[in-house]
């Protein structure tokens, strides 16, 4: 059984290799190969899962040692895998949702001549992501970590002829690199602290290290998580990442990759548990992002960017939960999984809508689409209900648990975090309702584009709708399935540990209050977008709205401070290099030449002056000799 783990990674990796090196002759079948390998990986995952269920909790962790990777002195990095419940959860999510989205892409990318390469990249992503969650040490995890970054870079910039896409891709990679810096520093710290960075030993020794060191490690890990999971202050890339094809947004920037940060924190539970200060920071980051994303989501008219904001905010929930420690780990992961379902579903829905609307993304140009694309409408709607936490659907259970946990943190922190979480729930309800209304309700607002093409909204082909339906099922039932009898809790508890904390208010109160804020949010949205017609041209809007449209000015800040400043710095450095560093040398040469030119004048061609120099020389010679004797 253990030896299957490598296959999980190998299958998609093989796919990537074949598709990317295969050349044009594979164009016809490329997408089938890619999908098949993704699916096979999923099958293997299921097999392993079944096997794992067969065992009892203690013996569920599988490990596979492939080979010693970088052995230098005390520095021993192996290529070895570890498959426990946590990784298993991710494996199933990744391969499952991944396979679905492969299928969906077959339809979505049908008219793109570079479809083969697209599937190659998707496979590459799957491989990297699986490596990330299966690695048994931080360095190997780092490989996966950057691997998914690469895949996301390639996929965001897939339509490279669009400068905006290329820029977005670059931005995503760079911001992630900042996060990666955190991860690598964390690894170095672990190495100097524990002499290793393999999960097991590190977690065992974690207790022995000073809290300061652990806090440092934890914060560095958090930095990494912020980069990958688009948390404040490294969230700026996610919105632009929507330049990529929609399936990519669904898979990478909603369901899986962006949640890697949560995985990292939960995986490093032992370190975080021992570093309360770091945990506090984590919760704060989560809370802030939660609101940040939500607010941004309210203002965007681009359907994908709105969803992106929502993703940010939902991951904020997860990070918040993860920051709560044992109280929240399980729920963080649970919300992660359910979110994987409904957010992927929502994105695929959005993709389907765009597919029918000539890739129009401005919701103000939609309207009343429910009649044109019923399946999309239904699946999207179910996803919508799930995310706003409509009772009984996935989001309801997972998010509710997080809010409870936030209160359960206790003390003022608990109240504040819980309050923020509630507020977030309200805003979520608002912006999602907004999206829903602007897209599917009201009267049609689309006009012919500049070259006179009137879009003809139509339902997408089966190959695209089926994945949406499947995901819709997931968004409806997953939450319930997990929560009944605490299935999910019992499943993960052996890995992450769990504690109930001390809730100041009863679970029921929390649930009711969530209901209340939910209703408020929906109502507010309906009042603004359901009752009155939506203007095709966005109104100027309040200061906050305008700020939110610009990602709360975060990009402008980056531009002014980092980009401009950087440009000035480099330009001045180029100048310095040329004039100063090089100038010194050239200057020496020049002055030498000048000196030479002057000395050369002494050679004036007059024999008598030569004689003078000889005479003087003789005089000096004699004088010097006598002087030597004198002293």
């Amino acid at each position, binding site marked *: 059984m253990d030896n299957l783990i490598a296959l999980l990674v190998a299958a998609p990796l093989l796919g990537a290799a074949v598709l990317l090196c295969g050349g044009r002759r594979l164009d016809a079948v490329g997408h089938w190969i890619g999908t098949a390998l993704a699916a096979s990986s999923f099958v293997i995952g299921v097999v392993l899962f079944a096997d794992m269920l067969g065992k009892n909790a203690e013996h569920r962790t599988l490990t596979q040692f492939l080979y010693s990777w970088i052995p230098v002195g005390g520095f021993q990095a192996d290529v070895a895998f570890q498959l426990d419940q946590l990784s298993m959860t991710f494996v199933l999510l990744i391969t499952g949702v991944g396979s679905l989205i492969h299928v969906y892409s077959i339809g979505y990318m049908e008219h793109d001549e570079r479809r083969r390469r697209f599937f190659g990249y998707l496979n590459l992503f799957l491989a990297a992501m699986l490596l990330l969650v299966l690695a048994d040490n931080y360095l190997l995890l780092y490989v996966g970590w950057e691997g998914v970054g690469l895949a996301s870079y390639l996929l965001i910039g897939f339509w490279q002829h669009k400068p905006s896409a290329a820029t977005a891709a670059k931005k995503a990679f760079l911001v992630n690199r900042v996060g990666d810096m955190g991860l690598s520093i964390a690894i170095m710290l672990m190495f100097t602290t524990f002499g290793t960075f393999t999960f097991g030993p590190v977690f065992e020794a974690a207790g022995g290290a000073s809290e300061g060191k652990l806090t440092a490690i934890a914060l560095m890990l958090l930095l990494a998580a912020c980069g990958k999971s688009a948390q404040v202050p490294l969230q700026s890339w996610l919105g632009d990442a929507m330049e990529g094809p929609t399936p990519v947004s669904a898979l990478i920037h909603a369901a899986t990759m962006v949640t890697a940060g949560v995985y990292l924190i939960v995986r490093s539970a032992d370190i975080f548990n021992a570093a309360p200060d770091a945990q506090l920071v984590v919760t704060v980051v989560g809370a802030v992002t939660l609101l940040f994303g939500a607010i941004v989501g309210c203002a965007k008219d681009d359907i994908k960017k709105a969803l992106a904001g929502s993703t940010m905010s939902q991951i904020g929930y997860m990070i918040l939960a993860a920051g709560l420690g044992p109280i929240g780990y399980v729920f963080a992961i649970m919300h992660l999984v359910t979110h994987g379902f409904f957010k992927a579903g929502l994105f695929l829905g959005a993709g389907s809508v765009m597919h029918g609307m000539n890739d129009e993304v401005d919701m103000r140009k939609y309207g009343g689409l429910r009649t044109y694309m019923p399946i999309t409408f239904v699946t999207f709607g179910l996803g919508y209900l799930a995310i706003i936490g409509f009772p009984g659907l996935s989001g309801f259970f997972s998010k509710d648990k997080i809010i409870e946990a936030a209160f359960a943190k206790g003390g003022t922190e608990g109240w504040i975090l819980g309050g923020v979480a509630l507020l977030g729930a309200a805003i979520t309800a608002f912006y999602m309702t907004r999206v829903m209304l602007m897209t599917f309700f009201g009267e049609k607002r689309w006009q012919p584009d500049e070259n006179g093409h009137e879009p003809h909204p139509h339902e997408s082909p089966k190959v695209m709708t089926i994945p949406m339906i499947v995901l819709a099922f997931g968004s409806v039932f997953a939450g319930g399935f997990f929560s009944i009898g605490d299935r999910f809790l019992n499943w993960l508890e052996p890995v992450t540990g769990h504690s109930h904390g001390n809730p100041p208010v009863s679970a029921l109160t929390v649930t009711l209050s969530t209901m209340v804020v939910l209703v408020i949010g929906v109502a507010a949205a309906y009042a603004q977008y359901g009752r009155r017609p939506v203007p095709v041209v966005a109104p100027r809007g309040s200061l906050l709205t305008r700020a939110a449209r610009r990602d709360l000015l975060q990009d402008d800040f980056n531009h002014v401070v980092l980009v401009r400043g950087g440009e000035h710095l480099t330009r001045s450095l180029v100048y310095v290099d040329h004039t100063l560093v090089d100038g010194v040398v050239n200057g020496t040469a020049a002055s030498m030449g000048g000196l030479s030119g002057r*000395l050369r004048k002494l050679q004036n061609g007059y024999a008598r002056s030569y004689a003078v120099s000889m005479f003087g020389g*003789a005089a000096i010679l004699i004088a010097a000799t006598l002087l030597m004797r004198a002293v």
Partner: protein
Amino acid sequence: MSASAVHSLWTTAADPISKIEAPKIEYAQLSPTLIVIGAAIVGILVEAFVPRKSRYYVQMFVSVVALAAAFAAVVGLATRGYGTTKAGIAAMGAIAVDGPALFLQGTILLAGLVGLFTFAERRLDPEAHGNRVDSFAAQAASVPGSDSEKAAVRAGFTTTEVFPLLLFAISGMLVFPSANDLLTLFVALEVFSLPLYLLCALARRKRLLSQEAAVKYFLLGAFASAFTLFGIALLYGYAGSVSYGTIAQVVDGTVKNVDPALADTMGNDVLLLIGAAMIVMGLLFKVGAVPFHMWTPDVYQGAPTPVTGFMAAATKVAAFGALLRLLYVVLPGLRWDWRPVMMGVAVVTMLGGAVVAITQTDIKRLLAYSSIAHAGFILAGVIAMTPDGVSSVLFYLGAYSFVTIGAFAVVTLVRDAGGEATHLSKWAGLGRRSPLVAAVFAVFLLAFAGIPLTSGFAGKFAVFKAAAEGGAGALVVVGVISSAIAAFFYIRVIVLMFFSEPRPDGPTVAVPSPLTMTAIGVGVAVTLVLGVAPQYFLDLANQAGVFVR
């Protein structure tokens, strides 16, 4: 001065001068010099009696045979151990036959032989009226451009006197480093200087420059030798003798039977110091050390290039030989006085030569300044004041002289309508036109620059090492810096030859006769051999590194 001394003077003078025994001359030990001098005299007779047409060949034959024979004699002496075990004083103390002397004589003879080939080259200049012509004036006496000269050219005259002159110069040079008393030193100095003055004036092309060079060289040379002579006088006054050995003893204070007069002058070190300084100055003039170097660029530029090459090589060898003997045999007791001074001279020579060379535009002047810089490097070895110092200098001189002759021989090949095209701008793109010549010249330049795997590096390393071991580390640092500066202008020439576009009015490269080819070939061969496998020659220099006293 005491009266008794004066009285004794009278009485000695009054004695009948009866018991002067005939001087005893070791002809064998002196054979190299004698052979050359003899050949030179034969050469003069040839000028007198052999018909003009065949003079050239006869002179060639005589000179080559003489130099070869002399070299054979040197080798013979060396193999018989006169360089080491049997080293001694010959000719009533006038000549020392020891390692350094033989080594340098050998070097001078070889250099002279190679130089002779460049003298005899007759293919480079276009034929005048069907006569092959060399680089010397048709008739030295006739005014350039005058009818008499035209007539001389038409008649196909050539100045075959250059061969005896060359031999005389060589003979003087052979004596110079082996002179064991100051008189011989002075005579040898003049014997090799005067022919050189004449040779400088004999250029076929650009006679005005040639004559100007001669005048400058002559006047300044005479000026310098006057200083030398006065120095000799003072030293004689100090020690009451001109023989190296005696002077050395007096300097060390180990002299026996001190008569009162001597006791009187011995006390007076001023005589000694000034005298020594003036003699050294004369020698420094010959090696072209700053500030006695100013004749070098002008003379090197004006003189016929073969003469320049020979002069640059052989004069340095001879003069440094003499300087070494003077400092190591006569004045070791004085080293604490002259070492610092010489260090100063070495420093300014190295730096001055290198710096001024940067802005030169004439290849011959460039090489002149480079030779000044090299004189500085060699001085660094001289100052070491150790056996290693001697041998390193010997090695350096050997290596340097062949590179120099070779380099100037290449200069003779690059010609345009006005004769040799010595202006650097004309050399642009030479590497494209005739890669071989350019490559050869590049090799010489790299050797001058002291790039590893060339003789220049081995020599430079040897002298610097000696200097460092002799406790003159500072000199090594200065030397390193000035070699860096020097590298700059050697590289400039290479850039010019290889990386810049050839000029339409650029010079042509004449195809030389085997003579010049041999000269250049020998130069290249020696450069590379001494660069890659210097061991044998270093050993030679090491064995030859001890002076007899």
